[in-house]
């Protein structure tokens, strides 16, 4: 077992465990911290896939910004008495679990079947990747981003602007009947 393989299993384990913890932890703050952990290990997985810059962005944006926001809001709310983590519905629970089960089964099935039916053995793909190689991902990334996807890029700029304006407006709203504070 080489270091790479060990690394993958290690990271996959951390990712899955902390991902499970997000869903299972009763206290939302623990969930948030576990999610941050997941984000970081996903970033590490990106590194094993040679997406270095994306890994950095993943950490900066997700772990360093989005999750900080989550944690901050949760601390703002100070929900100490979270007695019940899961919803209780009229007989919907079983169906939900069933659908999750089927869904996960199907996704796993789709991936494995898709890969085997296509007749593409993984070695072949790996060699192709090694030969073609994502040599300088950041350069390729910026070429694709700024030459091919300019409109998407500018549209995202506008989206962010709209969100910024919208959240400010939303935070100004007094929440219906809530008295002004």
């Amino acid at each position, binding site marked *: 077992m080489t270091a790479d393989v060990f690394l993958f299993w290690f990271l996959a384990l951390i990712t899955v465990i902390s991902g499970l913890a997000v869903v299972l932890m009763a206290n939302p703050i623990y969930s948030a911290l576990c999610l941050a952990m997941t984000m970081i290990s996903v970033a590490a997985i990106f*590194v094993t896939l040679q997406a*270095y810059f994306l890994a950095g962005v993943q950490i900066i944006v997700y772990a360093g*910004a989005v999750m900080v926001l989550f944690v*901050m809001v949760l*601390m703002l709310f100070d929900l100490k008495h979270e007695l019940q983590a899961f919803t209780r519905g009229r007989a919907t629970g079983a169906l939900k679990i069933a659908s999750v089960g089927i869904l996960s089964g199907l996704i796993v099935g789709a991936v494995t079947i898709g890969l085997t039916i296509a007749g593409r053995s993984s070695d072949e793909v790996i060699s192709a990747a090694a030969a073609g190689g994502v040599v300088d991902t950041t350069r390729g990334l910026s070429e694709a981003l700024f030459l091919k996807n300019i409109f998407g890029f500018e549209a995202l700029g506008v989206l962010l602007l709209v969100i910024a304006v919208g959240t400010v407006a939303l935070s100004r709203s007094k929440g219906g009947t809530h008295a002004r504070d």
Partner: protein
Amino acid sequence: MTSMGNTTFEIVINTIKLLAVFLLMVQAVPILVWLERRGSAFIQNRFGPNRVGPLGLVQLLADAVKFLTKEDFAPEKGNRIMFYMAPVFALIPAAVAYAAIPMSVPLKVGDYTFLIQGYEINVGIVFILGISSLAAYTILMAGWGSGSKFSLMGALRASAQIISYELALGLSIVGIILLYGTFNLTEMIHAQQGIYHFSAFGYTVAASWLPNWGIFYQPLGMILFFSATFAESNRLPFDLAEGEAELVAGFHTEYGGFKMLMFFIGEYGHMMIASGLMATFFFGGYSIWNFTPQEVYNWCYGLVGSEQIANVMNVVLHFLSYNIKFAIFLWIFIHVRWTLPRFRYDQLMDLGWKTMLPWALGNTIVTAIVIFVTSYFVIS
């Protein structure tokens, strides 16, 4: 290859090196604490610690003993897990990020080349920014885990401050990235070696009496970056998180003993990262004034006449050069702390959002325009 080397020897050396970088950081903290206390005393016309040992140097050991013998305390109302985890996590971002800063030219021993840094990362800037942005968690965990209002307030303030200044920090180095076209710190240092020279409109301008350092291209960027790092490491004049008059001691109100010390290590670690990055981005990193490493090596070789020794000497000289710059910035951190008064919180936020961010933006735009104009229009 994901890890540290190809042979067992290399892996072992690299592991030891990593530990050494970490220990270097940890052992620097007592010295800095001593320096800070003595320095502040001199600035404020006091004596400072001067009883234990010569110049009070052994004070550190006394402190350590005190830390060790304090009883371990956690408030009942708080969240114990968070309360204990926070100081441990305070250490991680600082050390992980610091290990990515190159401290000297690579050392060649036989067939092996050892970098004088924890590890080389090809997206170094992004990595360091990302890792150090994780520091906000530590603070939030500490504040929330203490279960105290002061702690929570302090934590929220501190994290809001950190993220606010992270914008200015991130934007102030876009100019530098534009200039050098790389995320890699080593390449960035390479670009700053030698004499001052740049090309514009197809001509090359050079000045042999100046080094090719970033500060001469990005003075505004340097000021913004340095100020933002003050806020990032929660140092005065930006230490609103622990404004004594308002919040007792901020997020570490409830901490004491070793846990407190670990927060200190984290804070000083951030200072060190900031100083190291300052040196790397704007002052040529480990490079020596306007000499390239090759010139320094040749000089060493001429002096001793042995390749091996010249190599080592070269590494040592550059390491010294780096550390001199490093120490100067650390001293500026300390000096500023004892010289400037604290901001009010609204002033702090105003400074971050309404002053530094627009200026950093302007700096970026101007840099981009200058680079664009000078290289797009070639006067032949």
